[in-house]
């Protein structure tokens, strides 16, 4: 397992986009995780006069209630990372298992699941989640659950397709001829050959989850004030864009860095996979 991780990390940093992306993503992650320990003030602390520009005591200035902008940003990354990560993990656990099984078995179940996934995927996502949020309230759990459920059909499709294509290979047939059990085949023969696809999709989904959840927060349908979630901060700072743009711009930049970083990593993996399909079995 450790060897596999090392291998994929080296694949990601093998190209410039991957390196830049990893740097950006890790940087944003660091800010989100370590930020709260480094923040000079609390995120609800009224630390100074309102709407001040950058100064030695408030590097990024203060917002409309007098809270230190820098501190709020340092505190605000948690929800941007934890919520999407949980949602994606949930979706992969559900969708991955289903996709593996259905991709291997095929047949009626496969058709049924694919049709269901198709229908679910043609429902506009923002709509779906917003409606559910209204019905069930805006808690973290609801956000994670609805985002996860929105992703699941897509992941089922991707995992199913990757599994099905692997299952046409003779080494899977050879395992069946040997009398290996379904679980053993899926774990030993199939999974090592779809990790690349899974990783690329994981990064992509993470990107979408980040976009999605920050957008919900921006629209006021996700995390609520006084949280200093980055998306929420961008929305709250809108009124002051002419006067004190940093209140909106800085959290937007952080979101942008994270989103672009994750996307670049996913791109790098996808490019690697595409290139190596031709040279066969270098995966």
């Amino acid at each position, binding site marked *: 397992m450790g060897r596999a991780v090392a291998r994929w990390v080296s694949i990601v940093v093998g190209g410039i986009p991957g390196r830049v992306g990893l740097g950006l993503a890790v940087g944003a992650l660091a800010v989100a995780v370590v930020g709260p320990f480094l923040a000079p003030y609390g995120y609800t602390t009224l630390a100074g006069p309102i709407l001040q520009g950058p100064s030695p005591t408030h590097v990024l200035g203060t917002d409309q209630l007098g809270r230190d902008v820098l501190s709020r940003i340092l505190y605000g990354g948690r929800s941007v990372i934890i919520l999407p990560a949980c949602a994606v993990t949930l979706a992969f656990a559900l969708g991955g298992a289903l996709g593996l099984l259905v991709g291997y078995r095929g047949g009626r179940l496969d058709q049924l699941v694919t049709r269901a996934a198709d229908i679910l995927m043609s*429902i*506009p996502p923002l709509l779906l989640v917003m409606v559910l949020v209204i019905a069930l309230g805006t808690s973290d759990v609801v956000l994670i659950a609805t985002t996860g459920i929105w992703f699941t059909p897509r992941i089922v499709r991707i995992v199913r397709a990757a599994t099905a294509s692997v299952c046409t290979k003779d080494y899977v047939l050879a395992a069946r001829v040997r009398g290996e059990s379904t679980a053993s085949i899926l774990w030993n023969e199939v999974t090592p050959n779809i990790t690349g696809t899974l990783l690329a999709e994981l990064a992509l989904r993470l990107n979408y989850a980040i*976009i999605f959840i920050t*957008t919900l927060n921006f629209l006021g349908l996700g995390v609520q004030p006084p949280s200093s979630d980055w998306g929420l901060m961008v929305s709250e700072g809108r009124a002051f864009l002419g006067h004190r*743009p940093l209140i909106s*711009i800085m959290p937007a930049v952080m979101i*942008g860095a994270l989103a672009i970083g994750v*996307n670049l990593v996913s791109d790098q993996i996808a490019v690697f996979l595409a290139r190596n399909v031709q040279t066969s079995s270098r995966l």
Partner: protein
Amino acid sequence: MSVPWISIGGAVLRRTALAALTVWIVSLGVFSALNILPADPTTAALGPEATPEMRAAYRRLMNLDVPPVPRYLRWAHGMLEGDFGVSVVSRNPIAPELAQRSVFTGVLGLASLLLSVLLALPLAVLSARRAGRILDVAVSAFAIAVSALPEFVVAIGVVVIFVSNLRLFPVSSNGIAEGDLTALVLPVLTLTLGAAAYVFRHARVSVIETMSAPYVRTAVLNGFSPARILWFHVMPNAAVVVVNAVALNAITLLSGVIVVENVFGYPGLGQLLVQALNANDFPKIEAVAVVTTTLLVVINLLADSLVLFLDPRLRTQVASGPR
């Protein structure tokens, strides 16, 4: 005649049926979410501090005493006839407002879609031909960055550049209601950037992949000029992927529309939806949900049918029936 119209027609019919099914399921889903999921719809709508009188009034207005199934049927039937119910907040019928805003959103969406394709496709072809060189690297980097960003970040960026600093356009796009077309510029620009980036990436990859196909080598060895090879041999094959990408794009575009209308105050369906959500105006929410889904599903249907028409391989699969 080698185009099996009947079989394509059959396939389109099947997809239309599926599309109708999707809309129906969404209407069911939305209705259930708002009426059945919450333990008490009145609390969900009015908040925990509502007085018993308010709750009773609400129950009467929304016919909550009627069991869910007949209520749903009445509502669905009403929609098919064009009656989308009455807003809980304003007591006005929803349909007229819905119609007008649909037009505005339609204009916004269509303009963005068209512009994004017009911008992205030529760039994609140019980039693909000079893959790896400066133009390609620069444009690709920009496209990756923009397509990775949430719409609202792009919107804020547009506002900062064009409103705060360049002071070119108004920040509020309300003016469209009076026919002020400059109100369209910023929202369209924001949406187009995101959509164009997305289409560009897919189209570029598709063209590059097609260019390395064996039949391109055949065309080269037949002595055809690069221009002929590009337009008559590569593009017909790349077109299928591109159309697919554009269709998928339409879906993300719709999500982006909601955000963009919110940021710029554009009086379309997206703004309506967010207002309704914040006001817990359930009938409006249901109505908007169904209309937007129908829009989406229709776009998908058109794109799917177009793809069927374009790709000869799919046609024969369709013609020979399920295997």
